[in-house]
């Protein structure tokens, strides 16, 4: 056996106390930084997760640009769909985030995190923004790919920063939706099934691939209550300069995120018990 080397302090017991909501920004910052550490340690996931959105842009986007069947005004179709694919890429990451929470529960990580002086809501918020950070990194890859394919992007740094925030807040909402479902179904298999069942409807019932006005009326209703539509609208306005109602988009996304955090926090204990 190796000997214990360090000298232990005389004032062993910790007396430093931080409580209440003051811990929230610290927890969010901590989990976001941790997610960046994970990205740095395993970059293959970034590449593999980029394949599907890249195919959407390269195959679907390039093909439909030639057909001119989807009326997108003066904007080429590839330009039109690029922000939609960025949003899709972020959605696919966030909607399966609940699986990671279930995995953390199964391996005792969640139990241990909940035994620290961290409120459930702070933990959920931290995890949600961590999903947002990963989604933003993934969307950045699609952004670069879009630029390479000749999409006419707005390079104004303020717009780019706002686009990052839009992706982070949206992914935070979708990850909370995923954690909420995880709290209800409790198993990976069921969550995987539900995640797959809702991802494509969320994507197709949004303005990611085609303008809302071209949809059947019933689909237009779904599109208007789908947070993904507001994310895509905001990204299009910021990255392409198309007309958008950024204030409404931001309001809907922030409200959805707060509701998602509340729902996921309420179900977190059920998940951990």
């Amino acid at each position, binding site marked *: 056996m*190796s000997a*214990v080397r*360090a000298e*232990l302090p005389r004032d062993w017991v910790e007396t*430093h106390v931080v409580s209440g909501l003051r811990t929230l920004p610290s927890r969010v910052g901590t989990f976001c930084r941790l997610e960046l550490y994970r990205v740095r340690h395993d970059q293959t996931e970034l590449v593999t997760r980029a394949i599907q959105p890249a195919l959407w842009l390269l195959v679907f986007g390039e093909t439909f640009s030639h057909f001119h069947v989807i009326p997108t005004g003066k904007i080429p179709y590839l330009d039109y769909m690029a922000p939609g694919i960025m949003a899709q890429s972020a959605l696919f990451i966030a909607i399966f985030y609940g699986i990671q929470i279930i995995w953390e529960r199964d391996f005792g990580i969640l*139990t241990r995190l909940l035994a620290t*002086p961290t409120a459930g809501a702070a933990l959920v918020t931290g995890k949600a923004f961590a999903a947002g950070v990963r989604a933003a990194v993934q969307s950045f890859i699609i952004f670069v790919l879009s630029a390479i394919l000749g999409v006419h992007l707005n390079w104004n740094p303020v717009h780019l920063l706002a686009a990052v925030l839009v992706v982070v807040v949206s992914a935070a909402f979708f990850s909370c939706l995923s954690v909420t479902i995880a709290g209800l179904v409790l198993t990976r298999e069921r969550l995987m099934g539900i995640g797959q069942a809702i991802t494509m409807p969320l994507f197709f019932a949004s303005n990611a691939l085609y303008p809302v006005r071209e949809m059947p009326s019933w689909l237009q209703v779904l599109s208007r209550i789908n947070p993904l539509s507001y994310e895509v609208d905001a990204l299009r306005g910021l990255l392409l300069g198309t007309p958008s109602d950024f204030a409404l988009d931001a309001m809907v996304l922030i409200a959805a995120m707060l509701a998602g955090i509340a729902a996921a926090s309420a179900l977190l204990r059920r998940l*951990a018990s």
Partner: protein
Amino acid sequence: MSVQAVECAELRHRFGSVQALDGVSFEVREGEIFGLLGPNGAGKTTTMKVLVTLLRPQAGSARVFGLDVRRQTMAVRRWIGYLPQQLSADGALSGYENVWLFTRLYDVPRRERQSRIAEVLSLMDLQEAAGRLVKTYSGGMVRRLELAQALVNRPRLLILDEPSIGLDPVARSDLWDRVRRLRSETGMTVLLTTHYMDEAEQLCERVALMHRGRIAAIGAPEELKAGLGPETTMDQVFRHYTGSQIDQVGSIRDVRSARRTAARLG
């Protein structure tokens, strides 16, 4: 009168039709190593979850150094270092990053953070491996890392839920030597569960034997053995108070969790 490290009085909790805790009462004195023993499903982990504030008991009370686990949740958590049964270190992060996470979650001030990380890594002899991903660690190293995480807040009470499960004899012995040394140097109280009676006998000043959600017996290992006659072993004490039909209690979830931990340890 001095405050006890742990005071549980008539704790009761039911999961559906299962009465997990059925009037559990015991005290742990400050500075002692106390063992909570019993077969799977006896209520050990439920008791620990109450003490670390992860579970609100439906009846009864529990205090940690005088703090009510129901009403003073965050304060209780700051006094405790907790090691759950499952391997809880994140294999996708380095040892350093795993410990850093806990310094943030316990709000260790920025100016002390680096020295605190170095201190606990050094205590567990993990300085050289700190930069490596945890998935490359041996089972014993992972447990030491988790102990390092549990120490970053300099707890008054260390709660260990079957920490030696799945470890080879050398790693087990090393782990317990470190716990013993920590206790003697800091005066920290240790509450642990284990299935190994030899460990309980060697480590614990007192033990409580749990069976079907109740405390069946409590006392020093020597006292409990002497109570059943000369040359009685702790295994015999265990069987006497908890019955020999061990396979009739405990859920498949307990077994699966233990196997998963053992599998991760390799």
